[in-house]
């Protein structure tokens, strides 16, 4: 199950990460994970306290997609991207803090469930995890490839794209929503903290290393990070997410060190 989780996770990351890097929205991608945590807590609260049959994964996905669309709309309306992202983080973190506070005395077990979003559960990957990642991959990967040209183009020159009749607003919604779906799915297995790193590394490497074969390099590096991480975790008797984290971090550091120094300072 862990191998299947790693394989599907790397396919998802390999498709989304380059799009985020090309769209210069990698900050958005990683800060979006705050909303996954907030959405997960909403789900835990509804199940454990309100006793409503709403799985946390559904609320996590819905909240993160909602916040991603709100962020996209704020940017479309002229708010600078960093301000829009900061607002979405504020909203998510506030929700997280309030719900964690209430859950701590209303359902202590709920808090530990919610923490699985932070640290991941891939050590205990289940058939449910594989099914969830597979379902996300079936939706996300074809859509990313179908609109890859448009994503590149719309973020390369938004005004020019608009003047040619391309709906810049909808492409932003689409990319952000696909990122939200991917982040939610991955966060359930890898944890929010680790997904930060995993979502960044392959896109960074691909755009730096191979401008013309971006996706091929992104898929390869993503698979390499996941597979090596799992092997390392087995060897060191660590949770798989820790092994993946070590490799992903090392890859990001390598990518940064590989940047040619051109400035004098």
């Amino acid at each position, binding site marked *: 199950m862990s191998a299947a989780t790693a394989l599907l996770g790397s396919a998802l990351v390999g498709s989304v990460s380059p799009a985020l890097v090309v769209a210069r929205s990698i900050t958005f991608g990683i800060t979006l994970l705050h909303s996954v945590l907030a959405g997960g807590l909403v789900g835990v609260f509804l199940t454990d306290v309100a006793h409503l049959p709403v799985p946390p994964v559904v609320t996590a996905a819905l909240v993160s997609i909602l916040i991603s669309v709100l962020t996209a709309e704020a940017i479309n309306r002229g708010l600078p991207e960093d301000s829009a992202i900061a607002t979405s983080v504020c909203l998510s973190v506030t929700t997280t803090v309030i719900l964690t506070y209430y859950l701590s005395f209303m359902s202590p077990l709920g808090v530990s469930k919610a923490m699985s979003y932070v640290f991941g559960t891939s050590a205990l990957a289940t058939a449910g995890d594989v099914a969830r990642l597979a379902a996300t991959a079936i939706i996300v990967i074809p859509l990313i490839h179908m609109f890859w040209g448009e994503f590149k183009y719309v973020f390369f*020159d938004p*005004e*020019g*794209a608009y003047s040619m009749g391309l709906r810049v607003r909808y492409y932003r919604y689409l990319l952000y929503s696909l990122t939200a779906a991917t982040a939610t799915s991955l966060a359930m297995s890898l944890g929010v903290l680790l997904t930060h790193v995993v979502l960044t590394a392959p896109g960074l490497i691909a*755009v730096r290393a191979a401008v013309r074969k971006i996706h091929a390099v992104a898929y390869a590096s993503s698979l390499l990070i996941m597979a090596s991480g799992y092997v390392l975790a087995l060897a060191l008797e660590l949770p798989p997410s820790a092994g993946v984290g070590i490799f992903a971090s090392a890859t990001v550091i390598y990518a940064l060190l590989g940047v040619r120094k051109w400035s004098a300072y």
Partner: protein
Amino acid sequence: MVSALPDKHVEVKDVTLSYGREPVVHDASFALKSPFFAILMGPNGAGKTTLIRALIGLLKPVKGRASIYGLVPWRDMGAIAEVVGYVPQVINVDALAPVTVEEVVAMGLLSKLPPPRVISGTVKKKVKEYLSLVELSDYEDKLFSELSGGERQRVLLARALIRRPKLLILDEPYSMLDFKVKCEVVELLYRIHRTLGVDVLMSAHELSPCMAYEPTVILINKKVFAIGKPSQVLRLDILKAAYPGLTEVKGLIILGEDHALRK
């Protein structure tokens, strides 16, 4: 080339444009009759780019109306995209994006089609043809980020031309280029205007690179001060009104760092 459209040309009537409370363009009016090779000239902050944004439908006027060949830009976006080829300022595109010249130019054509927008053999051929028109043959595989400022400008021009527009609108097409390249860009634009019958409206700080082609000059600084041929517009009384920072030195009037006129 779109030819079935009503021949109403470009008309801006009492247009006021604003991003907030203060108007950036106030009660601007002018009209251009096809065929035209026109320059929207004015100092920094005059509202040239804002007016261009309104003409391509990105900004709705607070007051007044504008039309392009009978179409209202912010209402008839689909039809405007068919007749207008827009070339943005090079500094407004992400110059470091991992896109090839072929991808940039092809998108001009592919944006007319539904997804998936794949660069087919026919599209490749068209891209080659239009790159050759802007004198960038064999540039298809180069990265946009590897090009010089003048070359990037030509690529964006090819992207607009491949759509076979009736009107080319260019925002500062020769800013930040050296004077020789500025003249080359203007010469190319004039040749396209003459040979393909495309109307041209561009914004610029300075007129010098265009003087040889007798353009129609629309002098703007928040409002339109004059419209006509350079000899009609570049008069001291008009320039003094439009350029508050205008300097007079020993028989010359200086409008900017590289633009001086004899009194």
